[in-house]
């Protein structure tokens, strides 16, 4: 299972605690992880990435293992520690005031 940490607004929207777990078939990539996350929590469709283009929303960032993965290829495998469930995949609202 892949551990995913959602930002507060999306946790409230999805009605979940800070961390959720989703099953993702290997190879685990950001795209497949988000596909699985949105399938389990349909209300999140459109909030993390555009529903048509599947582009990450500009003020949403992806972190894992102390690395910023936001600009990585969405089809590139995630770090092994994430796929093994040792580290969470963090979905973060960018610090931009508000």
């Amino acid at each position, binding site marked *: 299972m892949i551990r995913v940490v959602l930002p507060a*607004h999306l946790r409230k929207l999805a009605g979940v605690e800070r961390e959720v777990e989703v099953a993702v078939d290997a190879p685990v990539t950001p795209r497949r992880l988000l596909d699985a996350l949105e399938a389990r929590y349909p209300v999140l*469709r459109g909030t993390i990435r*555009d*529903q048509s283009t599947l582009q990450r929303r500009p003020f949403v960032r992806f972190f894992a293992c102390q690395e910023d993965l936001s600009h990585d290829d969405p089809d590139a495998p995630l770090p092994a520690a994430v796929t093994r469930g040792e580290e969470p995949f963090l979905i973060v609202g960018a610090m931009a005031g508000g």
Partner: protein
Amino acid sequence: MSSVRALVGTRKGAFILEADGKRDRWDVRGPYFAGWELYHLKGSPADPQRLYASQSSSWFGQLVQRSDDGGQTWSPVGNQFDYDGVPGTHQWYDGTPHPWAFARVWHLEPSLGDPDTVYAGVEDAALFRSSDGGQTWHELSGLRGHGSGPHWQPGAGGMCLHTVILDPSDAQRIFVAISAAGAFRSDDGGRTWQPINRGLHSEGIPDPHAEVGHCVHRIAMHRARPHVLYMQKHWDVMRSDDGGDSWREVSGNLPSDFGFPIDVHAHEPDTVYVVPIKSDSEHFPPEGKLRVYRSRSGGNEWEALTNGLPQRDCYVNVLRDAMAVDSLDDCGIYFGTTGGQVYVSPDAGDTWSPIVRDLPPVLSVEVQTLT
């Protein structure tokens, strides 16, 4: 006994204000969707318990919420707003072509007769319709594609379709307004559209009398006289007596004819309300005095309404969707400010009092009269 329910959208959530017909004691509920921008909420005229709300965030995009119990509980419905076909470009602020891209829903207008049908005016400017209670949305692309779309340009707040008016006497007739393209009308249920801007004069565009390019801020109609429209434009208060085919200025003796909201008394089609602000760059009341202006003659002659409103050191604004009226015998007038106050006048504007003083900046106010 009748009661009223005010639906208030703010920069940081939604609030519902309720009172009986006296409108002197209010229950305040909220915030709903705390932390999100609520550009607009509106109830269905056909089923007052059915409410729609536009919930958005620069971070997490657009959601549409629906309530079937008058706002006690809410459920997210569809939030996919895909333009029909290849959307092409409009003009950017610098005049260069800019790809059409959905940003947010500015205004939700439920059908007059069917609670499951609702229109959404969006940025970048387009009109969408749902016929299944908001689950799915389809663009009425004849508006964006009628020919002038590539020449539309955003106003300072974005290129938003902010006004949707459904004609109660003709189910096929729809009016919309776009900043900064102008007003448009469909006479076939939204399939085809024509600009209705003849008589508008706007400095700051190459041809002040152009067919499109005018920054219309808001249009209002009285249900009993749907061929008469009132418009608050970027500058100028305008009136049309022929369903928008032509317009004439009725700014008259206003201290400034710049402003955002405009509305009409529920029972007097010639009684109109505006809130003048100083200028396009100074979005606050002239002289620091918050004054609603009322015309009882359909424009030109205006009187300041000040009783109960701050008359010194007041520098708030009232945004385009932030004024509403109820339909009780003594028509109530409501407006919300960027300072977080929502004011009510239970006597058509003669006296005012704040319902709440300290909400986040108010984006919209709609009022339902419940029996």
